[in-house]
């Protein structure tokens, strides 16, 4: 029982940490591109990124299952070339989780970058700094609250994921069984004590994360650009 509890928490943390880490690498360049692009399809791209916030997880989960299916092009290609089946695996759940948490990473970063005056990057360019140096030395340090919000929200959101992981990953102990699914399971089995443990842990982690976001953002409130 205790072992199973630790295993589930471990899987939960592994999924949330991996999701957040992957999304940092995807999110930073993507949010930068989105903030400064003049592409006409931008509203459509923004809408697609935000879709996971309004769609039920089961819809995304369903599409991902269809995508992963060996009977379809992408899934078939994966099986043929890499002998990989993503449905009901940790990796499959991870990819879905990345897509599902995308807006929580992109939106704060995007808003942060958009709120910066253009003159900051322009001044940096006239001082001879390249776009990449400008991004890491000027833009990113000045949207620190947005970065913290994005990372913490992404982590908090993916740690509490239920629907997509259940749809795509199933409920396999040690592989795809995360805390939120375990709660549901334990309640179904009338095992309230175990459910209570999982629930309390998720509650405390999320509370700690959100409190961190709000206290950090309050500290930076006085730090506005004139």
């Amino acid at each position, binding site marked *: 029982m205790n072992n199973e509890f630790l295993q589930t928490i471990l899987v939960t943390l592994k999924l949330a940490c991996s999701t957040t880490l992957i999304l940092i690498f995807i999110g930073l360049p993507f949010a930068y591109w989105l903030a400064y692009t003049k592409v006409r399809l931008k509203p459509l791209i923004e809408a697609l990124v935000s879709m996971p916030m309004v769609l039920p997880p089961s819809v995304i989960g369903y599409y991902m299952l269809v995508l992963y299916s060996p009977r379809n092009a992408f899934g078939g290609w994966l099986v043929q070339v890499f002998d990989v089946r993503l449905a009901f695996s940790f990796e499959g759940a991870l990819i879905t989780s990345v897509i599902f948490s995308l807006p929580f990473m992109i939106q704060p970063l995007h808003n942060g970058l958009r709120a910066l005056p253009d003159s*900051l990057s322009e001044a940096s360019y006239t001082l001879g700094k390249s776009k990449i140096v400008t991004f890491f030395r000027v833009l990113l340090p*000045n949207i620190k609250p947005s970065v913290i919000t994005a990372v913490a929200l992404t982590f908090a959101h993916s740690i509490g994921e239920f629907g997509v992981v259940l749809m795509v990953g199933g409920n396999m102990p040690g592989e795809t069984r995360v805390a939120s699914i375990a709660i549901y399971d334990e309640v179904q089995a009338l095992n309230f004590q175990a459910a209570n443990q999982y629930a309390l842990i998720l509650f405390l982690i999320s509370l700690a994360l959100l409190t961190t976001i709000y206290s950090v953002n309050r500290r930076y409130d006085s730090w506005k650009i004139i």
Partner: protein
Amino acid sequence: MENNLIVIDIQKKMMTASGPVDLLVKTSVLQGELVALFGESGAGKTTLLRILAGLTAPDKGKITFGNTIWFDSAKKINLPPQQRNISLMFQDYALFPNMTIEKNIVCPT
């Protein structure tokens, strides 16, 4: 150093509060010369400075700095701001809020 003579001959369509305006500038700046640019708001003072810095591209024309061509619409040359030896003081100062005053000053080096 290069020959310090800026030659400007450019044309740019601007959108101002009073509608579209054509900005036409043809002038040159000599070495050691101190030049003041004045005009009513919307006349294109900021636009000209941004064009010189490379932050805005003119529609047509040529800008040379000594022997270096900064902009030439005929040859499709438009040197990015990083490669132009020019500094620009922004209207809103554009100081980097994440850096100390010292770092702001040292930053260009």
